[in-house]
């Protein structure tokens, strides 16, 4: 089912996935676009002679390959087209142009009930008039799976999401976390080859969210099917995914492993959205690094030192004033205004610093020091 030795997501590199021969594709998107309101807009425009302009371009020419068995995330800000893309894979929306292939088969015009994918909806979409058991059994019942097998599979699915004993409850009498599990069981019980999840943890509180992240990942490795996971939370995408795509305004800015995307952001947008942006641009780059272009430095890679500190040959440094201090518990975030212009965010673990010491640093002159290898060049996007 899953490959041995891949317990940690972050360590699972691109190479590891490539080594699975042959790397079969679960999903392929071929130049997919989606416009909303376009037809009506054109018709009205034709009738009135006005220019058509009402169409919303939700997805704007996406090419994407998702491999069989991987945990793939779609990350991006609200309105960037993630849900629309997911809904096109599920079959709820038809692309305006382009093709969608599931396991090599063109399903662009195939209705949802004939696709071998299942969805965990953001609002869970549990049937309120059915018990937990009937909700989970729905897909099997509709597909006429024999009663005995149905009961067994429902029991297994509920056990997998640790909801045994809740069979006769109604969704209305469950907590948010439990409903989420029912939704998951209802989808997984059908053994789809691809599971689509649209911000499934969005409505849960932080603690439950973190628990469910671990559990979801474990379930994915246990069942070994492809998960396509939509989220706007970069932390979630980085911790859970084998690979992820960063969406912006209906386009994909970068596809890669979490390490790729975090350490080698392809565009300025990716640098800013995944992690804190900390961009060095224009004159600042020339003064501080002595070259041109745009770079980003992750806040945790930068040290705070005295202004007089002399740095090593493989290090870069810049002087500045601490403009703001944000105490975060385990670490502290300093916002430093550089003498060369611009700002950098620095996070430091509170190893020995107390909150008092950290907060009193505001206004102090400092020198920021970091290894040159942590200057990440950013493409102009």
């Amino acid at each position, binding site marked *: 089912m899953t490959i041995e030795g891949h317990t940690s997501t972050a360590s699972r590199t691109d190479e590891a996935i490539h080594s699975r021969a042959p790397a079969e594709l679960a999903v392929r998107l071929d130049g997919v676009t989606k416009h909303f309101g376009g037809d009506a807009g054109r018709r009205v425009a034709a009738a009135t002679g006005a220019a058509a302009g009402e169409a919303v371009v939700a997805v704007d020419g996406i090419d994407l390959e998702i491999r069989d068995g991987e945990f793939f995330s779609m990350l991006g800000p609200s309105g960037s087209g993630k849900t629309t893309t997911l809904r096109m894979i*599920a*079959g*709820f929306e038809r692309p305006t142009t382009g093709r969608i292939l599931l396991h090599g088969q063109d399903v662009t015009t195939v*209705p*949802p*009930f004939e696709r071998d*994918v*299942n*969805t965990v*909806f953001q*609002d869970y*979409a*549990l*049937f*309120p*008039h059915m018990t937990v058991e009937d909700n989970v059994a*729905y*897909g099997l019942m*509709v*597909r006429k799976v024999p009663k005995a097998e149905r009961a067994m599979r429902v029991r297994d699915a509920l056990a997998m999401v640790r909801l045994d004993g809740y069979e006769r409850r109604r969704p209305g009498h469950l907590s948010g976390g439990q409903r989420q599990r029912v939704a998951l069981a*209802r*989808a997984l019980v*059908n053994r789809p080859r691809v599971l689509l999840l649209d911000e499934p943890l969005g409505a849960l509180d932080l603690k439950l969210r973190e628990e469910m992240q671990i559990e979801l990942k474990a379930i994915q490795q246990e069942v070994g099917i492809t998960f396509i996971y939509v989220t706007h939370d970069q932390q979630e995408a980085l911790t859970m995914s084998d690979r992820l795509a960063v969406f912006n305004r209906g386009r994909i800015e970068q596809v890669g492993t979490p390490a790729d995307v975090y350490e080698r952001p392809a565009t300025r947008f990716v640098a800013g959205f995944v992690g804190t942006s900390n961009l060095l641009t224009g004159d600042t780059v020339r003064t501080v690094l002595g070259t041109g272009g745009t770079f980003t430095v992750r806040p945790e890679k930068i040290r705070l030192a005295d202004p007089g500190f002399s740095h090593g040959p493989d290090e870069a440094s810049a002087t500045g004033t601490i403009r703001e201090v944000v105490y975060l518990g385990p670490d502290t975030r300093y916002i430093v205004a550089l003498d060369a212009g611009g700002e950098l965010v620095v996070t430091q673990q509170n190893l020995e610093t107390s909150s008092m010491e950290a907060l009193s640093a505001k206004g102090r002159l400092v020198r920021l020091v970091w290894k040159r290898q942590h200057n990440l060049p950013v493409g102009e996007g």
Partner: protein
Amino acid sequence: MTSTDARPTGNSMRRLAGWLDRHARVRLAMLLAAPMGWLVVAYLGSLTLLFLNAFWSRDPFTGQVVREFTPNNFVEILTNPLYRTVTLRTVAMAVAVTLTCAVIAFPIAYYMARVASSRTKGLLAVAVVMPLWASYLVKAYTWRLILSNDGVLNWLLSPLGLRGPGLGDNVIGLWLVFTYLWLPYMILPLYAGLERIPGSLLEASADLGGRGLTTFRRVIFPLVVPALVAGSIFTFSLTLGDYIAPSLVTTTQFIGNLIFLNFGVPDLPFAAALSIVPLVIVVVYLLVARRMGAFQAL
């Protein structure tokens, strides 16, 4: 109440307002006094009178109401086959009208709630509500004209060699009239009920392999049953109690016109007792409807 140094004229008003603010029950009582009074006097009062009357009798010689308790009216209603027949006929009519309204209203409400664009939706809503603006009496009379021997219906049907139900003693015309009259009362709650079903439930059903018909049978219909029952409360009870439409379009008797015939001169206590019959039927109907969740759907 911190700014007690305000203008002296406003002071007592402010004091009162503050006192009321702290005594929520008194405030509520003052607010509800008038409507509650109306409800008690006009509704419960007349209902009590009706109930008392039902157990009195009429002196056959003087025509005066004798205010002494007697169950005779009810004994008469329960034993005389005429009343049983009329009651059953009226209930059957109410059931038939309710079913017909449901069958016609469902597609219309479904189209309004889940298919039509918001513009079409608005137009349809107006079209459904519009007949309610016209007088009931006018509409009933109009149907008399439509159904009469040389009316519009027969004129339309004659090229096909057919004839409409006519007015006489048959009840088909009445069934048509009732269905027409009460249809909006079925469409509106159904429309609201269908509109309330989240689209994601229908998508979830399709996602799990359910085709249109399965989704309708397993998801849409069960979820809209409370709204359907809510609508049927209107169509059922309105049909049960009506006496004008039956007297206009058929010569056959229904509870409504029997009560009306006994009203005033002939036998007021008996009319009251007869009125209890549809009342009891509707109360039973409401109890069943409540069990089916109809009141949450209203």
